[in-house]
């Protein structure tokens, strides 16, 4: 989205223009959804968090700063909602059966993408990505798929660009190791349905 166009859309959004919202929705819905789905590994969770993200936008539209950059704004809200979701899940898990071993998404849980991934390589990448800690997964996804600049991606995670660069480097190493650890699977292998 061109910056000039974006500023006009933000202005219209601030005025409560429905068509402006639809334009933002069309431009970002799939991207933010893909990010949330790969981050949470659950379709129902990703859909709920995405809806909440859009609701936050329309609720706060009147208070948006005129120079708001919509991409980072949306990804920040989506990411924060996911962090809150993880915290609530962790609390639930802790109260029911203890903390260790109940991290919401274990390495053994296949993501919904794995079921539809076209190639063996894609399946391996999906599995490896899903096995990473959430913090590592989010930096990789932000850099590779969100379309944000590294500085914007760092602001989404609310860390400095330097800290983001370090986290990204760590995440890359983890992903490389995870890819090596994920065994090749036959294309017809059945997957557990998680969504």
């Amino acid at each position, binding site marked *: 989205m061109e910056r000039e166009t974006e500023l006009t859309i933000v202005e219209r959004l601030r005025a*409560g223009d429905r068509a402006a919202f639809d334009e933002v929705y069309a431009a970002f819905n*799939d991207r933010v*959804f893909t990010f949330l789905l790969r981050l949470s590994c659950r379709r129902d969770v990703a859909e709920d968090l*995405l809806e909440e993200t859009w609701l936050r936008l329309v*609720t706060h539209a009147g208070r948006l700063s005129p120079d708001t950059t919509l991409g980072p704004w949306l990804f920040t809200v989506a990411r924060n909602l996911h962090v809150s979701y993880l915290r609530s899940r962790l609390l639930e898990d802790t109260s029911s059966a203890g903390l260790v071993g109940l991290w919401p998404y274990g390495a053994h849980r296949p993501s919904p993408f794995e079921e539809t991934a076209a190639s063996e390589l894609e399946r391996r990448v999906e599995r490896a990505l899903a096995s990473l800690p959430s913090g590592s997964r989010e930096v990789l996804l932000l*850099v590779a798929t969100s379309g944000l600049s590294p500085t914007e991606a760092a602001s989404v995670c609310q860390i400095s660009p330097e800290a983001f660069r370090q986290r990204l480097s760590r995440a890359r190493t983890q992903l490389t190791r995870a890819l090596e650890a994920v065994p090749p699977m036959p294309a017809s292998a059945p997957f557990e349905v998680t969504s």
Partner: protein
Amino acid sequence: MSDPLLDLIARLPPATMAPERARRSQARCHRVLARRATTASNRERPLPWHAWSRALVGLVAVYLTEAVRQALQAYGAR
């Protein structure tokens, strides 16, 4: 993208929300925007004439009461 590892992630297929859920979600946001527009227009609408006239009558009444009270005070003192 020059990084082959990140390139692998970038090439993964994108996801789309279930169409029905997307429609519901968008409609919900439209409702919120419509509600906001209604609230904003109510806030911006000028007070109707009868509200102004009531306020004016009230002010005149207060003024007259005070004038009478002070007049009584002044003439009653003599």
